[in-house]
């Protein structure tokens, strides 16, 4: 991998452009064992080869069309696998898309823009991408000052990035970052220039030390894992004891920045399609207040939801996967309401 980093560095310097063959790491949110990965799914045949390191596997992927390619699966963190690759990005992205969408119990990360912002505190920011696309409401359902789509990519160190974000904020425009580019410099030496995407993809653009990149990826996993623990500690259930029943956990509140049509919102949120991938039945509908019994299509876990035009409350049952909350909130942020907030009993989560 170090050789590939060096090669990419030379390639960038020579051609002044980003290489498609950059070293990439994809962080995968897993609720299963490595042995549970099916040998065949979608258009792929997977062969897993163990290595001397009991946590590291070589993944040989044979697509129906095209050449076999290789990924390296690091399962040291049971809940968060790392998939390393040096293949062409379109090939890897396509595979990861199938891997995290087609397989139950395997998901990508869903980092809201606040999590990407937080990563910038510890490194030198060298640019970002902002992407917002209104996916729920039609153009004729939006007011004149609302944004239908905003896509922006900025590569710059320091003040231009901050100034652009400030301008967007001042004008009430979406600042939903979907990636951030971070430089790690020690003693004037660039250890890495990595770009982190909201879905857990981390690409190396530049660098001299693969270990530093791996530490950085672990840092992202730690942050995500900490939020996940907080979310999963809020899962709700009743336990009986001699003195009656005890409740555990708390609901999540997702507070919209403005009012939305309940009909449109509920239809989109419960129809099991992308991006939310939730299915639900409205079992109580009174005075613009809906109660929904739902299933996370990705894991099969149940959830309950109260929905109004201004907010939703989500109740996760015991053992449900907390990634539903990340996925729901991040997708609302990127495709419905960039000003949306989420909180639990103890305040804002992100």
């Amino acid at each position: 991998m170090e050789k590939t980093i060096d090669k990419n560095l030379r390639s960038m310097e020579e051609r002044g452009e980003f290489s498609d063959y950059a070293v990439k790491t994809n962080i995968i949110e897993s609720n299963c064992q490595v042995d549970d990965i099916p040998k065949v799914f979608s258009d792929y045949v997977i062969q897993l080869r163990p290595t001397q390191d009991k946590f590291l596997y070589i993944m040989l992927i044979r697509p129906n069309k095209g050449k076999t390619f290789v990924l390296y699966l690091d399962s040291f963190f049971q809940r968060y696998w790392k998939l390393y690759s040096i293949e062409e990005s379109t090939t890897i992205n396509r595979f990861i898309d199938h891997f995290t969408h087609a397989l139950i119990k395997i998901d990508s990360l869903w980092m809201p823009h606040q999590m990407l912002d937080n990563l910038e505190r510890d490194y030198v920011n060298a640019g970002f991408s902002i992407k917002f696309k209104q996916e729920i409401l039609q153009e004729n359902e939006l007011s004149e000052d609302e944004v239908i789509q905003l896509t922006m990519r900025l590569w710059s160190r320091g003040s231009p990035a901050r100034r652009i974000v400030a301008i967007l904020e001042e004008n009430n425009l979406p600042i939903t970052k979907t990636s951030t580019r971070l430089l790690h410099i020690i003693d004037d030496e660039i250890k890495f220039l990595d770009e982190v995407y909201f879905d857990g993809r981390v690409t190396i653009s530049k660098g001299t030390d693969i270990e530093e990149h791996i530490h950085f990826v672990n840092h992202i996993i730690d942050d995500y894992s900490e939020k996940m623990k907080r979310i999963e500690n809020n899962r709700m259930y009743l336990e009986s004891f001699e003195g009656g029943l005890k409740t555990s956990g708390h609901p999540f509140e997702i507070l919209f920045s403005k009012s939305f049509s309940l009909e449109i919102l509920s239809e989109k949120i419960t129809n099991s399609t992308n991006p939310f991938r939730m299915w639900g039945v409205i079992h109580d509908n009174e005075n613009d207040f809906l109660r929904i019994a739902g299933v996370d299509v990705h894991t099969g876990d149940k959830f309950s939801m109260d929905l109004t035009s201004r907010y939703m409350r989500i109740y996760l049952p015991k053992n449900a996967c907390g990634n539903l909350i990340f996925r729901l909130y991040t997708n609302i942020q990127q495709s419905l309401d960039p000003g949306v907030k989420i909180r639990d009993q103890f305040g804002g989560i992100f």
Partner: protein
Amino acid sequence: MTNSEESSRHLDLMNAVLSLSYNLESYPNLLYRAGYRVASIEPQFNINGSANPDLLFMSNENALIAECKTGEYYTGSNLKRYGEINVRHLVEKGIDIPSRNIQIDIGVFAGENFELLTQRLSENEITYPQVKIDEVIQKNCWK
């Protein structure tokens, strides 16, 4: 009203009261702000007969026994016995108490037909504080 409907209304009211002890922005959090947390749902005490309140909340200084009333208000001896519940009964049931000096309060919560409840309680010489939960509040509680 069928038994099932009545049971559902009672559960709605219980949830409406229970939710007051959660720190939500989309629902009143009065009990939470007063320091109360849910200690037990449907605890059962034996005090010369059964005393089965719907909810028990606990703060650092106080316990609050909450009885939720819907439909045909039955205000019999079960309700009267709540006044005899003391700290020892809570400890015996494994309910965590912050100190032995807590004060135990009782509240009766109701939705519709509040006047009838007041009348029934008065007829039975029950003087616990009564709280009316607005129908809109009930609908917006969590379940």
